[in-house]
Structure formats: C-alpha cells, structure tokens
C-alpha cells in the first residue's frame, strides 16, 4: 500500500477532525451532546449506506431492519454479555441478514431490491411482536452505566471505522469492480467480475454497521419495543441524508447529515405534524434539483473552475 502526499494530508486532517469531535462531551453535556449523538448516528448510517448505494445505485431501505436487530441484540444480551461483545455480535447478525437479503434480491433488478428492503423492517417487526405476544413478554429494559458521552464516543469510533473501511474499499479490487458495475453492469460481467458476489459482499457493510449502531444506541432508549426499534422512518432519513450530500464521495453523506439533522430538529420541535411533509419535499429536491447531491454540485463547480484555468 503506497500513500501519496495528498493521502497522508487527508489522513492527518481526518484524524484531527475526529480528535476535535471527540472533545464535545467535555464542552457540553446536555442539548448539544444529544444533537452530537444524533449526528454521529446518522453520519455512521448514511456513510455506510452510501458505500453500497453510491457505486451500485441500488436504493436500500433496510437500515431500520438492521438497526432494530442491533437494538434487540443488546436488549436480549445485556444481562449476560459485556457491551463490546454485543456490538460485535450485532455486527455479525447484521452482516448475515444482509447477506441473506442480498442473495435473494441482488441478482435481480433494482426494483425488487427496493421493494424487498422496504418491507424488511416491517417483516422482522411483525415476527418479533408475534413471538413476544406468544411468550407473554412485552418489551425489554436495557439498563447500563453507559451515559450519553459514552454512547457518543462509541458512535464516533464506529464512524471512524466506517470512513476507514470506505477508504480501503475505494483502493481495493472490490472497489474498482464496484465502480465498473455502477457504470455498466453488462460490461462488468463480461470482464469477468462476479457482479452478484461483489454486490452481496458490499451490502454486508451497511448491514453490519447499521446493526452495530442499533446495538450502541439501545442503552439510550432504556425500554425497547418493536415499533420503536424498527421505525421505518429511519431508513428514509438515511437515504435522504446520503443522497442530499452525495453518495459518490466518501465525505458526501456527512454534508447532508448535518443540515438535515438541524432541519428535522427544527421542524419536529415547531411543527411536529409536518415532518412527513418535509421528508417528502426532501425527496423531490433530491430528484429534481440535486440529482447527485452537494458533492456532485461541488465536483461540477470545481470542474468548471479547472476548465477556465486551462484557457
């Protein structure tokens, strides 16, 4: 692995940025830390989402399903296992579930994938509710000594891991194969790439990450029940944030997460009934105004500046 000067500079900047972010709990322990947790959560989810959907153009709505599975792993195992083991376990469950979903749907066209992932959270939720009704159990209590700052650091660490994974995938053969698949799947298949395998492998990344995020956030909810853990709106928020920012760049989703978190925060505290309307509008903005997100817009502007310089 050879690093160029720019790579090293970017790496140092990224480490510095994470270091600064990690100081937040020392500055504030209330409102801003809460917001920090939300932003860290969505950054992790949206960035890992874009790792898969950016190059392949498949729209995954399975985030809520993986997230819910993760919260249940923590909820069920908190009495017996240490917290770090649960996070790892959730990652494994998420990856396995993603592989199963991928094997069933990723050989087919994108529409099947969207529809299947759209209902996946609901499917898992109905099954868990049914099991709970039959065993007479209602919800789960998650009682830990992990406070808001601890959750924040866990999420920040996971986010760093996601960025690192994304960066490594981008430099690997898998990343190269995926870029070809995204450009033209037929060409990719003809040049000897096992397209289904590449897609399934990559889909396991957001699956594992979303489940781990769910596992980390479970202590924040204290009481877990299916309709809370598998709230489908989460999947849509992640899609919007990633696409608003731009799924083609590693840093793209981050640019979408921060403004949209503030917007949703403002809307839900002032007009609680209008959040669905805002989410709908955001989808239309993405499709009609920002088809490749902020990152695409920046690329376009940079491209024009460069073109002007050469004249």
């Amino acid at each position, binding site marked *: 692995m050879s690093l160029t000067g720019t790579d090293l500079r970017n790496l140092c900047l990224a480490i510095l940025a994470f270091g600064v972010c990690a100081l937040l709990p020392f500055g504030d322990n209330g409102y801003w830390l809460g917001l920090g947790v939300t932003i860290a959560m969505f950054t992790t989810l949206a960035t890992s989402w874009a790792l898969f959907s950016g190059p392949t153009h498949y729209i995954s709505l399975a985030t809520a399903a993986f997230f819910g599975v993760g919260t249940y792993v923590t909820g069920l195992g908190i009495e017996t296992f240490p917290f770090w083991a649960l996070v790892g376990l959730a990652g494994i469950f998420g990856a396995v579930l993603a592989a199963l979903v991928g094997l069933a749907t990723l050989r087919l066209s994108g529409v099947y994938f969207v529809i299947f992932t*759209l209902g996946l959270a609901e499917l898992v939720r109905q099954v868990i509710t049914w099991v709970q009704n039959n065993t007479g159990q209602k919800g789960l209590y998650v009682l830990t000594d992990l406070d808001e700052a601890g959750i924040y650091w866990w999420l920040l660490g996971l986010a760093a891991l996601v960025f690192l994974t994304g960066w490594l995938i981008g430099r690997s053969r898998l990343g190269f194969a995926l870029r070809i698949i995204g450009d033209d799947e037929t060409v990719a298949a003809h040049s000897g790439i096992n397209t289904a395998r590449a897609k399934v492998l990559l889909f396991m990344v957001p699956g594992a990450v979303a489940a781990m995020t769910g596992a980390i956030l479970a202590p924040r909810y204290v009481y877990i029940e299916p309709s809370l853990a598998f709230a489908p709106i989460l999947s849509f928020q992640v899609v919007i944030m990633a696409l608003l920012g731009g799924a083609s760049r590693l840093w793209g989703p981050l640019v979408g997460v921060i403004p949209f978190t503030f917007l949703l925060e403002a809307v839900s505290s002032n007009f609680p009934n209008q959040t669905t309307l805002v989410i*709908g509008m955001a989808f239309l903005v993405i499709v009609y105004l920002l088809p490749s997100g902020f990152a695409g817009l920046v690329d376009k502007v940079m491209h024009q500046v460069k073109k002007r310089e050469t004249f």
Partner: protein
Amino acid sequence: MDILITGILLGGTYALIAMGLNLQYGVARIMNLANGEILVAGGYFAFIAYTATQLSPILTIFLVAPIAFALNWLIYRIMLQPLVNRAKTRGQLETDSILATFGLSFIGVGLMLSFFGGDYFSYSFMAVSVELLGNTYGANRVLSFVMAVLICGALYLWLNRSRPGLSIRAIATAPTSARLVGIDVKHLSALAFALGGAVTAVGGALISTYLTLDASTGVVFTLKALIIVIMGGVGDVRGTIVAALLLGILETVVASLLDPGLTLAAAYVMFLGILLFRPQGLFGKKPT
C-alpha cells in the same frame, strides 16, 4: 371453507388495486410508490361523501374515478414526464421514479395528516350479513368484490378488444418498437398512468366500506400491490388476478389460523419464494 371465501372476497379488491399499479408500472414504466396514498385518498373521499351526504360508496366511485384520473394525469405530465425524458437508461428512470414517488407518498401522507388528522376512519355501510354456501359474510365485502370483478372485467375487455387497449399492450411489451408503428407512446403512457391511479382510487373507495383506514396505512397497500404485481408478472392481467386471489387467501388463512399481526410477514414469505424461484412472475416466460 369460509376462510377460502373470505380470502377470495379480499383478493378481489386486491386485484383491482394491483391492476392499477400494473398499468402504471407495466405501461408507463413508473414504479409508483405513492399508489397506496391514492388508495387512502379514495377511501377518505368515500368516507366524507357517505358521512356528509349519505352518498353510497357505489355511486361515489363515479366521482372518485374522474378526479383521480385527472390528478394522476397531472402528476405524470408535470412530475414524471421530465424524469422519463432525462433518463438515459431504464435503471436510471427506475431510481429516479422510485425516489420521486417516495416523495409524493410522504407528501400525500403529510397532507392527509394535516387535513384529516391521524385517526382511523370507518363508517358502517351495508353492515348486514348475507349467506353464501352456508356461511355468512358482510354484504359490504360481497358488494365490493362484485364491483371489483366488474371493473377488472371491463378493463380486461378494454385492453384486449379495443384499439387503444391494443396500443397500450404494445407499449407494455416493447416501448421502443411501439413508437415505430405510429403509437403515441407519451400520450398513452400518461393515459395508462392516469387510468391506473383512477382504478386504485376506486379500489380504495371500495375497500373503505369494510376495512378501517388511516392516513398512513397507504404504504401497506403499496407493498401488497407491489408483491401482487411482481408475483403475477409485470403487464400480465391474468397473472395479477391469480396472484391477488392467492394473497387474499393466504392473508386470511394466516390471520384466522395464526395471528392477524402476521399478514404482511406471510405476504413477504410468499414474495421471497417468488423472488427465489420464479422472478419472472407466475405465468412469465424466462427471459432469454
């Protein structure tokens, strides 16, 4: 036996809804994820008409259909046509239309929430029982089924016997070749999309006579319609009807023998089976 009949009665209305979606996806190539919201809107219309003026839902559908037709025609012309024009590949159009119709779906839910609130709504229309083969069923269910059969039959005849129907089937089979033989693809796609919306809204008005709906139930119906369309095969009327009846029966079996909370899970298991073993649909031919 009564499970089977209840299932078929439910499946009849499902067939109507899925037929609407199939027209939109098979002909206009728009995977319309706001389909369920059109259905709920149709249901609200029937509810308001019935509670305010005692207008029978059977008559309301003659009002719902043209309104939904016009609304969907406008949606297609203003919002979706630009996407069709700018799309370079089929895949890109699919992604764009999925995102755009998700947007419309959320806006639809948001608007209905702010106008009607989040409460469930239902009304009692023809809540008397009729006897069929020794068991009793709600008259509203039977009537909805009969109406659904009539509308499906009319659509089937229109698609198979009329000139515009022939053109629409031609577009569903081969959109690029259809243009070459002088079919106005743009015009007819808009027509098919609008017609699909009208059929779905009528289905919503009918289903509201016996099911309880609320502003955010639309997505459940969208999912069911999508599963039916894929199971029956895109653009296949016969397959859609068979798949809808199968889903209706399966749901009723699961709801009455296992747990009513598992109906969507059951539909999903069926969908998974189709994806794994017959992704081209029940009667579809294997792609070459």
